[in-house]
């Protein structure tokens, strides 16, 4: 059989994609469905998991304020992380874009490289920098006169947001960077030649054009932060739980799998709704940019 003949054959693409499709149905869709099912099962300390259909776990999550607090913390951390990456990452992408070729690729490697370095190693770095009241960051800030008393970073939400923002920063820079690549540098020059100052140019010309990049970066950062595990577990410790670390505890310590499955299902549904919803909003608002 030749490739040219394949293209007229309606079954050829399905034949090519069939192995991957079967793999995804068998080992992705079925396990996900099983997890949703699991969240409706019963569980007891001595009887284990009982395959019945009840709303016990869902009712517990809905009524127990512990879960409201935990999900509140999860999304608060995700929002603050997203804001921090946008406020710092977008200007940095703009600065990078104006650099000369060789410097540009060097700094791009430094900023994007961490994306591929183990999250455990990067978070460990922050744990070392924060390290109690006489950590390096506090020593530096105090000797610079920025603060008078050490700020507690370990086991606090502040520390979690800073470390998470560092972990997520490359996604924001990449996203804004991609938007800047589509930007015609002549427009900036045109604005200048018409008498616009640097601030006006940035506010009126650059900002509107990179906004879609900032927003799609924000969606990625938000969804990854809300479901982050390693950083909250190491910096937050055992007390400050977020959705992912709580689900981990239910599965591997308490062994209440149905409750853990309900937490995970809720997280998944909430994130899918937020991501799909804001994607649709952004694409409608900036339809011309995506064309």
């Amino acid at each position: 059989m030749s490739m040219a003949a394949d293209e007229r054959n309606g079954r050829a693409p399905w034949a090519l994609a069939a192995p991957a499709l079967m793999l995804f149905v068998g080992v992705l869709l079925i396990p996900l469905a099983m997890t949703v099912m699991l969240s409706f099962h019963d569980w007891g300390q001595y009887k284990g998991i009982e395959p019945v259909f009840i709303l016990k776990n869902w009712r517990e999550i809905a009524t127990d304020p512990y879960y409201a607090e935990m999900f509140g913390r999860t999304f608060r951390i995700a929002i603050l992380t997203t804001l921090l990456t946008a406020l710092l990452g977008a200007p940095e992408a703009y600065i990078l874009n104006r650099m000369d070729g060789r410097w540009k690729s060097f700094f791009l490697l430094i900023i994007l490289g961490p994306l591929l370095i183990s999250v455990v190693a990067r978070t460990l770095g922050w744990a070392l920098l924060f390290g109690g009241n006489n950590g390096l960051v506090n020593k530096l800030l105090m000797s610079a006169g920025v603060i008078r008393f050490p700020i507690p970073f370990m086991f606090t939400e502040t520390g979690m947001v800073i470390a998470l923002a560092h972990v997520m920063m490359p996604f924001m820079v990449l996203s804004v960077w991609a938007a800047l690549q589509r930007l015609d540098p002549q427009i900036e020059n045109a604005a200048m030649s018409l008498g616009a100052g640097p601030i006006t140019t940035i506010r009126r010309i650059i900002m509107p054009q990179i906004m879609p990049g900032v927003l799609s970066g924000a969606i990625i950062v938000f969804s990854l932060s809300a479901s982050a595990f390693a950083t909250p577990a190491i910096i937050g410790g055992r007390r400050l739980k977020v959705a992912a670390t709580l689900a981990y505890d239910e599965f591997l310590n308490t062994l209440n799998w149905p409750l853990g499955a309900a937490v995970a299902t809720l997280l998944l549904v909430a994130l899918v709704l937020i991501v799909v919803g804001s994607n649709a909003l952004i694409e409608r608002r900036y339809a011309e940019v995506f064309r």
Partner: protein
Amino acid sequence: MRRNGPLTLIFHTLFVIVMAAPILVVCLVAFTPEGFLSLPTNGFSLRWFRAIGNYPEFIHAFWVSLGLGALSSFLALLFAVPAALAIARYRFRGRDALAALFLSPLMIPHVVLGIAFLRFFTSAGLGGSFAALIIAHVIIVFPFALRLTLAAATGMDRTVEMAAVSLGAGGWTLFRRVTLPLILPGVISGWALAFIQSFDDLTMTVFLAAPGTETLPVRMFLYIQDNIDPLVTSVSACVIAVTMTALILLDRFYGLDRVLAGKGDTGR
């Protein structure tokens, strides 16, 4: 005026320092001669790198991670290459849905995937096994393998294939002698990126790994949960070195921005 002013350069410098600081501090502390966490102030020492040798569980975990990464990335490509050819070359109903399904592991939180796989493989009697880890990793690295293969297959010059067909090549020969060599750079980069993703994954793997099948990130995470000492920094420094090597190779052969931005995406 396209130059960066002094204020922006100060911002840039601080930004780069903060981005590099946690990684640098891990690598520096790894060389401390002291028995506790400290920056090496009086001389560099390799004692904590030698100490890794006394912890066979780290060595074992390293080999598990290496084998898992290499094997699952290879298996993912076996599935991804034909799927990428189907998506790149044909316009058929359900094409977009298929692409979305294949890229969906990027969207689903890894903690949810970990739970789903734990439930699934435990029911299948494969809980804690290496086979379960391999299958789970094939799923999570699949999007990376697919994206880079897809980019190569989309940008490929089809006339070479047509010439081969006109000379009588068909089916398997055509794929092996013409198509595969043409998309090989994309396939290899896809393998490397998939390998890094597998090698670094903690969140999903932590649910599946059992004593004996613990990967390096899982072993490091469990170790950090108990205590943080210079040993785990020297292990981290080794991991960073492995990743940096793969990264520099990727950058040389393919371009890091292309790899990370995933150009040739199926979206839109």
